[in-house]
């Protein structure tokens, strides 16, 4: 997968937001990874640690939270989360856990989000 490219995008967003807020150091970053993206959170954290070395995010704690897949079944109307057993890790094809229908709307779990950062900023005083 494209963990490296995604880690670069995450870091860019983090640095941009930190600069906007006059940070001199990034302390913590919380990232949400939807299960449908098939991105490997541990790999992303490792790459962020390496990529951030020469930036103000050097040494920051990177935390990954998983977003479960939520579907609405167009067959039986099931509306809810998929459990981890409902998905084959190699071919994460979402299907209705109740009736097995493949026609489902994926309502959640597709996104990669930089959710929150904690920064240290120099106050003007």
């Amino acid at each position, binding site marked *: *997968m*494209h963990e*490296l*490219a*995604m880690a670069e*995008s*995450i870091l860019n*967003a*983090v640095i941009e*937001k930190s600069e906007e*807020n006059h*940070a001199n150091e990034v*302390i913590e970053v919380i990232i949400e990874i*939807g299960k*449908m*993206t*098939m991105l490997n959170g541990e790999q992303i954290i490792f790459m962020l640690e390496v990529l951030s070395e020469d930036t103000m995010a050097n040494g920051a704690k990177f935390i990954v939270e998983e977003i479960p897949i939520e579907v609405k079944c167009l067959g039986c109307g099931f509306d809810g989360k998929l459990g981890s057993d409902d998905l084959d890790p*190699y*071919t*994460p*094809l979402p299907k209705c856990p109740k009736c097995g229908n*493949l026609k489902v709307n994926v309502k959640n779990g*597709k*996104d*990669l*989000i*930089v*959710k*929150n*950062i*904690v*920064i*240290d*900023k*120099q*106050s003007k*005083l």
Partner: protein
Amino acid sequence: MHKVADIDVQHNITKANKKIADRITKKLNDSNIFGVDFVGAIGSGKTSLIEELIQRMDGNIGVIAGDVISKFDAGRFKKFNIPVVGLNTGKECHLDAHLVEHAIEDMPLDNIDYLLVENVGNLICPVDFDLGSHIRVVVISVSEGDDTVEKHPLIFQSADLVIINKVDIAGAVEADVGKMVNDVKVLNPDVEVIKTSLKKEIGLSNVINAIDRFKKRMDL
């Protein structure tokens, strides 16, 4: 004085790509251009198919060729004297909307009717990256094995048109083409599946007709 601040960022990287893709679609619509994204396995025949389309389709064609080293595929298109922009994808496993948006800046939009985009040969990574094209054509071939579809369901669910190429060698590689068609239909019941041999010129007119039906439906 140091001060620690907790900042709610909510930067959605997936949606950021989609936003750019929507911008591309609008740009194509404004210029009356029909955009087609070609994705598929490595070596399945994406470049060969686009080469045939360039020679056979009515209307002017521009091509964006994403390739590990873009001079290879882009070079094959340039010999037709059409506008071609090559994108060096290097280690990247997919094109994203940002790359395509920049490539479009170098396209003479007033002079083309179709924009054909060849993605990097990969059946997994391009799934999540909308490039703003109007339709996605997934090109696979029998030589990847007749279990390709089952192994990569998401890309087939995202397809508007599926091409199964190299049917001329199906016997030699013992691939069951009927099974491949069935597997696609299970995942995406309404999608049109076309069997082609670019070597033996089988199925090409079906592909051209299918693309033009989509184009007409979009009123472009």
